[in-house]
C-alpha cells in the first residue's frame, strides 16, 4: 500500500509540475486578490478583524481554484478508470490527500507573506499566527479532498466546488479568523482551543472522507 501511495504521489507531482496549471491559477488568484485589496485600501491599515477575514477569504478562494484539480484532471484525461483498476481506493485517497495538503502548504507559503507585505499587517504573536495558518490550511485541504472527488464525478463544473466546500468548511474559517485576529492583536489565549478545534476537525473530516471515498470512487 505504501508503495502504491508513493507511486501515485510521484505521478501526481510529475504531472502537476509539468504544467503547473492548478498552482499557477491559485497563485495568480492570490496575487491579484491581495494586490487589488491593497490598491483599493490605498495604504490605509484595516482593523485586525478585517485583515483576518480578508486573509482567510484569499486563502480559501485561492485554494478552491486548485484543490479540485487533482481529481478533475483524472476525469478530464480519462485516467480515472486506469487508476481505479490498478490501485486500491484507500491508496488513492491517501495519496490525493497528501498531494492536496502539500498543495495547500505551497499556497499558504505564497499567500501569507504576500498578504503581510502588501497590507502592512503586523503580527504580534508570530508562533500562534503561524500555527493558526497551518492548522486552518490543513483543515481546508482535509475537507476539500472528498468534495473534489465528488465534483470530478459531476463533470468538474466550475463554481460547484466552492459552493459545496464553503458551507462545510465555514466552521474552519470561522475559528481561523478569530484565532488569526487574536494573534494580530497579541491576545495570547489561556488555552489553545482554536488550534485544538482545527486539528480535531481535520482528523474528523479526514476519517469520514476516508470511509466515504470508496463509495464515491468505486463504480459498479
Amino acid at each position: 500500500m505504501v508503495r502504491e501511495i508513493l507511486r501515485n504521489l510521484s505521478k501526481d507531482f510529475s504531472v502537476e509540475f509539468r504544467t503547473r496549471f492548478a498552482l499557477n491559477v491559485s497563485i495568480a488568484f492570490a496575487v491579484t486578490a491581495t494586490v487589488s485589496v491593497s490598491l483599493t485600501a490605498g495604504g490605509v491599515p484595516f482593523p485586525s478583524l478585517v485583515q483576518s477575514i480578508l486573509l482567510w477569504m484569499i486563502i480559501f478562494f485561492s485554494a478552491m481554484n486548485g484543490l479540485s484539480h487533482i481529481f478533475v484532471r483524472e476525469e478530464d484525461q480519462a485516467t480515472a478508470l486506469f487508476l481505479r483498476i490498478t490501485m486500491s481506493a484507500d491508496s488513492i485517497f491517501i495519496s490525493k490527500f497528501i498531494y492536496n495538503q502539500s498543495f495547500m502548504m505551497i499556497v499558504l507559503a505564497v499567500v501569507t507573506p504576500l498578504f503581510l507585505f502588501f497590507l502592512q499587517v503586523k503580527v504580534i504573536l508570530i508562533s500562534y499566527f503561524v500555527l493558526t495558518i497551518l492548522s486552518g490550511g490543513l483543515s481546508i485541504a482535509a475537507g476539500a479532498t472528498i468534495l473534489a472527488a465528488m465534483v470530478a464525478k459531476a463533470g468538474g463544473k466550475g463554481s460547484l466546488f466552492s459552493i459545496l466546500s464553503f458551507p462545510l468548511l465555514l466552521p474552519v474559517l470561522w475559528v481561523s479568523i478569530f484565532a488569526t485576529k487574536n494573534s494580530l492583536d497579541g491576545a495570547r489565549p489561556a488555552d489553545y482551543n482554536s488550534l485544538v478545534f482545527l486539528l480535531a476537525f481535520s482528523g474528523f473530516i479526514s476519517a469520514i472522507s476516508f470511509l466515504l471515498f470508496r463509495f464515491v470512487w468505486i463504480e459498479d
Partner: protein
Amino acid sequence: MLIRQVIKSFYILMPLAILMAFLWAPSAEILGDFSRIIYFHVPLAWVSVLAFLVSGVLSAAYLFDKKQRYPWLDEKAFNSASIGMAFALLAVITGSLWAKLTWGSFWNWDPRETSIVVILLIYIAYFSLRSALAGNDRRGVIGSSYLILAMMTLPFFVFLAPRIYDSLHPETIINADRTPHLDDRMRMTLLISIFAFTSLYAYILHLMNRALAVAKRLEEEYHAAD
C-alpha cells in the same frame, strides 16, 4: 404500523396544538402574546434538524444496502432533505418575526441565526450537486455521500456554535441549572406542538415517498411498454 399511527395522530395533534397555543397556554410575562410564536418556531426548527438527520441516516442506509433491498433510499433521503429545507426556511421566517418583536430587528447575526444560514447553505449546495448530476448514474451515491458529510457537521452548528459564542437566544435546552424555565401549561403546549409538527413531517414524507413509488412504477411500465 408505528409510522401509520404517528401519521394518523397528526389529524388530532395539529388542531390541538393550535388551540392550545392560542387559547390555553398563558402569555409570557414580558413578551406578552408575541411569545406564542414559540409554539411554532421551536417545533419548526426541531423538525428541520430531524429531517436533515433522517436524510443522512437514509443516505448511509443507501450506501450500505448493496442488494437494494430497500428501494430508492437516495430519493427518500432527498425528499427528507427537501422537507427539512422547507421547515428550516419557515423556522427562519418565524424566528425573524420574533426577533423583530423582541430584539427590534429582523436579523442580528446571532450564533443560532448564523448556524441556520450555514445549514441552509449546506443543503442548497446539496441540491446544486444533485442538479449537476442529473442523468448521471452515480447521482445517488455522490448525493448520499454529501448528505452524510452534511449530517456529520450538523452537531457543530446546532449544539456547539450557539454555546461557544454569546447568543441572544434563551437557552431553553441547557441552562446552568439544566432545566427549561417555562410554565407547566406552556411546556405542555410546546411538547404537544413538537409532536404535532413531527407527525406533520412524517405525514409529508410518507406522501412524498408514496408519490415517488407511483412515479417509479409508471416509469417502469412505460419502459416495459417500449
